[in-house]
């Protein structure tokens, strides 16, 4: 029994390690600082979106519109910058507002009119795509004028200076240590079983080493990408929300048993609309990042991203029927997906095989999850 629990908690790291090992053997450049940095940027994009999707899936709903939403919001900002000459922050602000409005609207329709989210967001997928192409006139709209850099274009091209990266790693590791220590004290207070001090310290050292290692690798190329920071911040916020606030627990409650949530006096409607609004925020952030990633808004930005986001969540152990999942799992899921896509791109694998491999990994991951969590 215990072995199974251990295996389950390690299944994602192991899967990731296997994928990494496979690609590293086939192509040593996979582990090069340059490629890892690329991988981190791609990971940041999928990961951020997946975190938003995670909150939606927790409630037992789904959002199929996020891919075309990503295109649309990035497109709006790009058009405002390039054609209208707005400053990047203003344009991105406008994009964010648009996202908030659209997602609040979808959330309201789902909740108040009781239309299944699958339908509303499938409609959203189609409608946003149409609006998106209209907005950019099906053309290619750069994220900055001429060759200048702006906040928008820097989203995926700015790297933190080496020292700042190290400083951040240091700070993170300290905070982590403090959190672990505090949690331990609490558990002792409650007379709950705790790990031995040695073990706890070992875990902390391993985690800190991983963080430093990451920063050092990044510094070998250009430094820690700004986009990783964005993902990190989003991750911390979503973690805090889902783990430590009533709002977050309500997400689980609604997904677990909506009727019970209603009877417990939870404002289910408000919470669900809230989840969609937050999804809107991550769509906007992802929209800016993935548009910046290509350097301009083109008609295909965001295509199929909804599937990647859902797949990341599900691979990471989030239940589609709601009520189950963790932030860490989602991040692992996103990382597995990204590693796979990046590695195959690097090997120049044919598109056919790419499709097949993605499908197989998705099914295998979920199958493993199902197998291991059946008690």
């Amino acid at each position, binding site marked *: 029994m215990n072995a199974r629990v251990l295996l389950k908690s390690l299944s994602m790291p192991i899967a990731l390690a296997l994928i990494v090992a496979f690609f590293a053997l086939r*192509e040593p*450049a*996979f582990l*090069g600082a*340059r*490629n890892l940095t*690329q991988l981190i940027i791609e990971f940041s994009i999928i990961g951020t979106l997946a975190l938003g999707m995670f909150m939606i899936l927790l409630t037992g709903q789904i959002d199929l519109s996020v891919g075309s939403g990503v295109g649309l919001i990035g497109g709006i900002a790009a058009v405002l910058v390039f054609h209208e000459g707005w400053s990047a922050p203003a344009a991105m602000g406008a994009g964010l507002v648009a996202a908030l409005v659209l997602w609040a609207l979808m959330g309201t329709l789902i909740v108040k009119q009781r239309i299944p989210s699958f339908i509303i967001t499938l409609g959203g997928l189609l409608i946003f795509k149409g609006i998106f*192409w209209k907005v950019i*006139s*099906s*053309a*290619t709209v*750069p994220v900055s004028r*001429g*060759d200048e850099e702006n906040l928008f274009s820097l989203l*995926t*091209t700015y790297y933190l200076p080496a020292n700042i990266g190290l400083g951040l790693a240091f700070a993170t590791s300290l905070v982590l240590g403090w959190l672990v220590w505090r949690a331990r004290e609490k558990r002792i207070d409650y007379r709950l079983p705790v790990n031995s001090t040695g073990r706890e310290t070992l875990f902390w050292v391993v985690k800190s080493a991983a963080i430093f290692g990451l920063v050092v690798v990044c510094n070998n190329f250009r430094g820690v990408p700004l986009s990783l920071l964005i993902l990190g911040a989003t991750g911390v916020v979503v973690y805090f929300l889902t783990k430590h606030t009533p709002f977050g627990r309500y997400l689980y409650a609604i997904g677990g048993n909506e009727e019970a949530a209603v009877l417990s006096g939870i404002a289910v409607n408000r919470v669900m609309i809230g989840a969609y609004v937050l999804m809107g925020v991550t769509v906007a952030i992802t929209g800016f990042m993935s548009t910046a*990633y*290509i*350097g*301009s808004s*083109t*008609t*295909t*930005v965001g295509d199929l991203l909804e599937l990647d986001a859902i797949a990341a969540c599900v691979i990471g152990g989030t239940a589609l029927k709601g009520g189950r999942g963790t932030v860490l799992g989602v991040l692992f899921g996103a990382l597995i997906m990204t590693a796979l896509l990046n590695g195959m*791109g*690097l090997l*120049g694998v044919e*598109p056919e095989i790419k499709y097949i491999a993605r499908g197989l990994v998705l099914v295998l991951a979920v199958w493993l999850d199902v197998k291991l969590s059946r008690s």
Partner: protein
Amino acid sequence: SKGKPVIGLSLDTLKEERWQRDRDTFVARAKELGAEVIVQSANSDDTKQTRDIESLISRGVDVLVVVPHNGSAVSRAMKSAKEANIPVISYDRLILNSPVSYYLTFDNVKVGEAQAQYVVERLPKDRPARIVRIYGAPTDNNAKMFKEGQDNILNPLIKAGKIEVVFEDWALDWKPDVAKKIMNAAITKAGTNIDAVVASNDGTAGGAIQALREEGLAGKIIVTGQDADLAACQRIQGGTQAMTVYKPLKNLATRAADVAVAVVKGEKIETAAELDNGAVKVPSIFEKIISVDKDNLQSTVVADGFHSAESLK
């Protein structure tokens, strides 16, 4: 019969600048000639294109002008056209294995040759040059012809060891983001000492240049393109893209409208060449292409009014 000739224009996609320009020029010219145009865009989907053409036939157009997404996938629709006695003009991309009245295009092999030629002339001669090749959509017959043109120039040099292709891949549906990922993979695998990127059109060139820009290499590596898209001309002006192949779309589209109206009126059109598409020998018209870089940008693209000097600043 009804007086005003009606032309059905079925496009593969409108999601690239050039096709919007093709459409606009074509429609404008047709109007001048007193014809009406119904435009359809298939969004890069063969089934949709078949439906589009069926719809145009249902609406009783007098002639069809088709840019196929996939030259051999419109055969069933072509059959319907034949049954309805509607002549078909193949535009820019050749329709394969079906009866077609005329084919108007730029010389696609020449496009590939121009791209390769430009690169070859500027590659270092003292050592084997290292290049990356990004091809177009594998489903587009033109993409194969561009590659063929490039091969004509590059293959002898590759065989002679003067050029090394360090990475090559096809960009699905000509997508810029796919091209960017290809370029990224190329740099990761082959390092930054790359001399040139032979990208098959401006969209894919844009994707590749974005990757180079992030690497701090934009402008230091020769990148080719095609179509003289606005964004590409701006890049040429700014120095991050070396060349594009300017295809005076105006000529092609205008000519196509002329031919279409003439066909409706039953007039015969003189053509210089014929191309075998597998079913018939198609009377073909080739428009000239022009290789454009920073030096002749003003005298070609701008002088033609293709883009205003203003918009390139």
